[in-house]
C-alpha cells in the first residue's frame, strides 16, 4: 500500500566500520556528515557500534544523532563485494550540530549502486554513432578530443573552443576539479569564450560588491545568531540554505541566542530577540515560518520586480537623513572622494527627501512607511546609542535581477554606510546557492565594465554560429541557461548538421578516420562538436558527440568551503566511481597531457608549455598545486583583507583529514611571526580589500525603466502576468539525482506554478490543474498551486525541473556591465491546459507549502 519502498529496521555498523568525514554535497550551508562503510554481512550490536550510541533505547528528541531510512544504502566496490553505507549528519559540526535537511538527508540514496536508482550513472566514454551512443576506451576518447581541440585551435584559433563548466564546490566538487579545469581552459586553451555553469559568461555575480573592496563571503554563522536584525533580500533561506536558517537564524528569532549576544556585546548594550526583514516579492516559506515564530518581529517588503536597488538607495537615504551612520568610520574606512558620487547619484541629496521617497514608492511599489520601518530596523541605533548590528544576505533575487551590478552595489553600500560589516552580528554578502571551491589562473576578463569587462556572452556566440567545439561540464544548459528554448534549438541544429555530415557514408570507428571526418565537417558545415562531461546523461547530452563519465561526490577526495563561514573541509573518498568514471581534474589532465604531447611532436615548444603542469598523480597534488595561485599569504590578522577569500595556502589534505568537521576558515593566513596557519572568522574588521584599504563608493544609475527584451511585453494584454522563478525545498538544481529518488519525484513530479487566488479564479484554475505558461521566448507546462505566496498579477515558477524548464520563458537580456542575466523577471501569459492530467497528480501532495499554521 505504501507509495514507496519502506524499511522498518536498519543495519548497524560494527565498531571497526570504516569512517570518513565529509560535507553535504548540496547547498551553501555545507552541513558536516560522517560516513560509515562496512561489509554487508557484518553487523555491530545495539550496545556496541561505530556510532557509539546505545541503539537499544528509544532515541531522544533533537539529540543530534539521526539515522533514518534515507541515510543508508548498499554499495558494491570494485572488488565486487557489497558494503553497507551510512551517511549521517555530524553532531560535532558547528554548522549543523546534527541537523540536516530533506536534501542532505538523502545523500546516501545518491550513491552509485549497480541495480538501484542510480544504476544509469555514466561508466565509460560514449561516442555518438548513427543510432545513439556507444562505449569507447579512454585512450580513444582522449585521442579524439585532444586532437580535435589542438587542430581546431591551430586552424581557427583558441576561440574556436568554447566552454561552460561549473566553478564551485559541493556537488560540483571543489578546489581540485576547478584547478584542473582552470589549468586546461585558462592556461592551456586560452579561449575567451568561457562560461560558468548555468550562466552565459565567465564572471563574478557580485562585482558590484567586490569592486567596492568587499568580498561577498565576509561573515560567520555566529553572526546570524548575534545580529539584532537579519535582512534576507531575494534570499529564501528556509528552502535554499535550510540548516543555516534552522540552526542560526531561527534560534535568534526565538530568543535562543540572547546569552551569546550578552557575552559578545559591549557592556550595557541591549541584547534582545532578533528581528528579520524579508525583501521578496513572494511570501515564501522563509517569511511564513518567521512569522509563525513571531509575526511582530518580521517585516516583509514586496518590491516590484527589478526595482530593488532603488529600494536599497531609499533605505540608505532614510538612514542618512536620520544620521544613522558613524562619520568617524566613514572617514577612516571609506574613500570620501568617491563618496561624493554616491551622495549625488545614489542618495540624490539634491532632491528633497519627500520627492526622492515619492519617486522610490512609485518605482518599487513599497510604501514610505515600510521603507522607514525597514531602515530603522537596519540602521537605527539601539537604546543607549549603541550601533545596531545587522546582517544582510542577498542571493539570486538580487544577483539574477535586472541590473545585476547596481543591485549588488546598492545593498553593499547601504551596509557600509550603516557600519554593518566587520563587527560581530553584522556582515553583508551572499547567502549562496552551492558551496564554493574556486581556484583558477586569472580569467581573461577581470571585472565589470568598470574594471576591464564585460566578459563575452558564450550563449550568443554558440547560438550565433561561433566556435567549433563546445565543452559542457557538470551543467545542463538545455534546462538552466536563460532563454533556453532558443539556445537548445540553435545548438541542436548545429550538432545535427555535424552529425549528418559524419553520418553520410558511415561514422568511422577508427579514431584517426573519425577525427579526419570531424575536421572535414568543421570546414564544410557550421556544425558544433559538443562534449558533455558529467555523472549522468543530461538533457544537453542528447546532442553531444562525446560524453565523458565523471566521478561524483564521495568517489574522489575533494575540498570546498561553505558560504556562511568560509569553512574549508575535506570531502573524503569513501567509494569507487562507477565503471571507468574519473574525477574531472583527471579527465582534463589526460586531455591536457595528450595535447602537450601532440605539440611536442610538432616541435611547438610554446604551445607544449601552455599545456604542461598537469602531470598530477593524486588529488592532494592538485590541491597543493592550486594553492600557489593565491600568492604570498603571510599576513597579520589586521592584514587579512588583502588575502583572497578562498586562500588555503599551506593547508594539505592530510591536515584537513585530521581537522575533520572542525575544518579551517578561509582566507587562511600564515602568521608572519610564528609561521603558524590561522583561519579568518569574520572579514573587514580592519580594512577593505582595495589597494588603499578603503571602501570604494559608486553612484548607481537612475531608474530608466525596463530593457527592450521585457519592455516589449509591458502593454501587451496577451502577457498580463509578471513572472519570477525560484527553487523548491526538496530538490537540488536540475534534479539530476532527485529525479531518480522516488520520494522526491513523487513530491515534485512536474514543473509547477504558483498563482494568487484572485488571478486563478479569473482563469478558472485550481490547485492540481495544469497550466500553459507562455510568452514569445517559449512555453512550459506546469502543475498549478493556488496560494497567497504570490501577489495578484505575479506568478512564480520553479526555475527548472527534470521534466521541463521555465527558463524557456526568460529573456536573453544580460546586464551590460557584467553579462549576468535577469533570470528572475519577465512577463507571461497563463492558460488552462486542456490535455489529460499527468498520473503524477494522483500521488503528489497538493497542500500549500507556505502555510504552517496549526490553529
Amino acid at each position, binding site marked *: 500500500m505504501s507509495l514507496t519502498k519502506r524499511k522498518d*529496521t536498519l543495519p548497524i555498523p560494527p565498531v571497526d566500520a570504516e569512517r570518513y568525514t565529509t560535507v553535504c554535497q548540496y547547498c551553501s550551508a555545507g552541513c558536516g556528515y560522517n560516513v560509515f562503510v562496512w561489509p554487508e554481512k557484518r553487523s555491530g550490536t545495539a550496545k556496541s557500534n561505530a556510532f557509539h550510541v546505545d541503539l*537499544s533505547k528509544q*532515541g531522544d528528541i533533537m539529540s543530534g544523532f539521526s539515522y533514518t531510512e534515507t541515510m543508508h544504502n548498499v554499495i558494491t566496490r570494485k572488488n565486487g563485494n557489497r558494503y553497507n553505507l551510512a551517511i549521517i549528519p555530524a553532531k560535532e559540526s558547528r554548522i549543523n550540530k546534527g541537523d540536516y535537511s530533506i536534501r542532505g538527508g538523502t545523500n546516501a540514496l545518491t550513491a552509485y549502486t549497480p541495480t538501484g536508482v542510480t544504476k544509469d550513472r555514466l561508466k565509460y566514454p560514449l561516442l555518438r554513432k548513427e543510432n545513439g551512443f556507444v562505449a569507447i576506451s579512454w585512450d580513444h576518447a582522449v585521442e579524439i578530443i585532444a586532437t580535435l581541440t589542438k587542430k581546431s585551435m591551430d586552424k581557427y584559433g583558441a576561440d574556436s573552443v568554447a566552454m561552460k563548466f561549473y566553478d564551485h564546490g559541493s556537488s560540483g566538487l571543489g578546489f581540485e576539479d576547478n584547478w584542473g579545469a582552470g589549468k586546461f581552459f585558462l592556461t592551456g586553451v586560452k579561449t575567451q569564450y568561457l562560461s560558468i555553469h548555468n550562466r552565459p559568461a565567465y564572471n563574478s555575480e557580485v562585482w558590484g560588491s567586490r569592486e567596492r573592496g568587499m568580498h561577498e563571503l565576509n561573515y560567520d554563522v555566529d553572526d546570524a545568531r548575534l545580529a539584532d536584525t537579519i535582512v534576507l533580500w531575494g534570499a529564501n533561506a528556509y528552502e535554499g540554505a535550510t540548516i543555516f536558517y534552522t540552526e542560526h537564524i531561527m534560534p535568534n528569532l526565538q530568543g535562543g541566542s540572547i*546569552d551569546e549576544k550578552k557575552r559578545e556585546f559591549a557592556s550595557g548594550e541591549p541584547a534582545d530577540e532578533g528581528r528579520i526583514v524579508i525583501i521578496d516579492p513572494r511570501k515564501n516559506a522563509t517569511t511564513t515560518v518567521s512569522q509563525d515564530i513571531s509575526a511582530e518581529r518580521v517585516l516583509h517588503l514586496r518590491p516590484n520586480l527589478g526595482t530593488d536597488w532603488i529600494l536599497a538607495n531609499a533605505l540608505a537615504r532614510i538612514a542618512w537623513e536620520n544620521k544613522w551612520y558613524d562619520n568617524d568610520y566613514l572617514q577612516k574606512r571609506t574613500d570620501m572622494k568617491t563618496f561624493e558620487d554616491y551622495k549625488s547619484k545614489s542618495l540624490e541629496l539634491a532632491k528633497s527627501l519627500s520627492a526622492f521617497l515619492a519617486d522610490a514608492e512609485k518605482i518599487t511599489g513599497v510604501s514610505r512607511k515600510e521603507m522607514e520601518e525597514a531602515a530603522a530596523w537596519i540602521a537605527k541605533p539601539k537604546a543607549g546609542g549603541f550601533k545596531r548590528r545587522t546582517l544582510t544576505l542577498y542571493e539570486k533575487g538580487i544577483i539574477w535581477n535586472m541590473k545585476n551590478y547596481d543591485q549588488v552595489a546598492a545593498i553593499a553600500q547601504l551596509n557600509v554606510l550603516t557600519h554593518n560589516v566587520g563587527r560581530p552580528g553584522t556582515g553583508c554578502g551572499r547567502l549562496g546557492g552551492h558551496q564554493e571551491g574556486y581556484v583558477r589562473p586569472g580569467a581573461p576578463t577581470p571585472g565589470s565594465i568598470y574594471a576591464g569587462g564585460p566578459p563575452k556572452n558564450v550563449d550568443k556566440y554558440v547560438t550565433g554560429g561561433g566556435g567549433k567545439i563546445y565543452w559542457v561540464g557538470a551543467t545542463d544548459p538545455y534546462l538552466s541557461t536563460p532563454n533556453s528554448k532558443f539556445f537548445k534549438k540553435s545548438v541542436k541544429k548545429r550538432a545535427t548538421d555535424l552529425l549528418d555530415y559524419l553520418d553520410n557514408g558511415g561514422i568511422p570507428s577508427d579514431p584517426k578516420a573519425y577525427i579526419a571526418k570531424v575536421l572535414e565537417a568543421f570546414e564544410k558545415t557550421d556544425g558544433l562538436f559538443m562534449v558533455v562531461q558529467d555523472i549522468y546523461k543530461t538533457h544537453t547530452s542528447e546532442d553531444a558527440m562525446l560524453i565523458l563519465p565523471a566521478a561524483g561526490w564521495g568517489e574522489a577526495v575533494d575540498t570546498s568551503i561553505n558560504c556562511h563561514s568560509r569553512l574549508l573541509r575535506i570531502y573524503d573518498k569513501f567509494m569507487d566511481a562507477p565503471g571507468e568514471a574519473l574525477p574531472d581534474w583527471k579527465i582534463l589532465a589526460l586531455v591536457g597531457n595528450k595535447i602537450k604531447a601532440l605539440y611536442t611532436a610538432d616541435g611547438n615548444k610554446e604551445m607544449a608549455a601552455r599545456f604542461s603542469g598537469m602531470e598530477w598523480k593524486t588529488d592532494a597534488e592538485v590541491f597543493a598545486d592550486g594553492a600557489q595561485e593565491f600568492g604570498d599569504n603571510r599576513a597579520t590578522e589586521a592584514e587579512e583583507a588583502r588575502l583572497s577569500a578562498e586562500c588555503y595556502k599551506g593547508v594539505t589534505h592530510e591536515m584537513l583529514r585530521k581537522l575533520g568537521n572542525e575544518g579551517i576558515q578561509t582566507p587562511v593566513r600564515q602568521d608572519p611571526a610564528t609561521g603558524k596557519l590561522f583561519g579568518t572568522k569574520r572579514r573587514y574588521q580592519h580594512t577593505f580589500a582595495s589597494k588603499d584599504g578603503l571602501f570604494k563608493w559608486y553612484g548607481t544609475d537612475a531608474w530608466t525603466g525596463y530593457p527592450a527584451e521585457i519592455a516589449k511585453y509591458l502593454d501587451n494584454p496577451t502577457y498580463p502576468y509578471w513572472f519570477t522563478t525560484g527553487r523548491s*525545498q526538496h530538490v537540488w538544481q536540475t534534479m539530476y539525482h532527485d529525479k531518480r529518488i522516488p520520494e522526491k519525484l513523487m*513530491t515534485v513530479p512536474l514543473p509547477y506554478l504558483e498563482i494568487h487566488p484572485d488571478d486563478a479564479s479569473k482563469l478558472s484554475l485550481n490547485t492540481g490543474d495544469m497550466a500553459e505558461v507562455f510568452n514569445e521566448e517559449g512555453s512550459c507546462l506546469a502543475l498549478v498551486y493556488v496560494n497567497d505566496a504570490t501577489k495578484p498579477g505575479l506568478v512564480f515558477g520553479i526555475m527548472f525541473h527534470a521534466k521541463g524548464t521555465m527558463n524557456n520563458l526568460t529573456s536573453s537580456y544580460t546586464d551590460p556591465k557584467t553579462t549576468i542575466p535577469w533570470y528572475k523577471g519577465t512577463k507571461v501569459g497563463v492558460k488552462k491546459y486542456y490535455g489529460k492530467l499527468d498520473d503524477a497528480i494522483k500521488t503528489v501532495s497538493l497542500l500549500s507549502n507556505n502555510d504552517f*499554521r496549526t490553529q
Partner: protein
Amino acid sequence: MSDISRRKFLQTTSASALLLFSGLGRESQAASVQSYPSKKIGNIKNLKVNEPLAFNYPDNNSPCVLVNVGKEASGGIGQGKSVVSFSTRCTHMGCPLTYNNGRLVCKCHYSMFDVSRNGQTYQGLASQWVAQVVLRLDAATGNIYAEGVEGLIYGRIGNLKLS
C-alpha cells in the same frame, strides 16, 4: 540544537508523555519475537472527520495518531478509504507532530507531512516520510486494529528492537 527549541519541545511533549503509560503492557515483549502485535485502537463509528485519536503502537513508547481525513487517502480504510494512522514522532529529529487539517506539522523545524499521501514530507526538513501504521477494519464491529508499521519510527534502529 538551540536551547530554545529544546525548551519548546519539553513544553509540547508533556501531553504525549502521559500517553506513554496508557498502552497495553504486553507489547514490549513483541520486540523479541520480531512481529507486529495486533492492537485494537478505536472504532470507526466513533471517529469524526479531522478529530484525531492518540494511541501508542507498537509499544508504549511510540505515540501515534488515528484520523479520518474525510477523503480518500493512501493506505486508508473504511468506506471512503479515509481512515489512516501515523507515528507522531517527526522523522526529522523526533519532535512530536500535531495533526491539523489533513497534515502533520512539526514546530521544531516546520516539517509538514501529507497524511492522505502516505505521510510524504511536502514541506520541511524530514528526508524520510513519516511512518504509517497498517490498519485492519473489522467490518462486523467497526473496530480498528493496528497491525504493523510501514517505515521506520524515528529514533530506532528497528521498530520492534527496543530493549
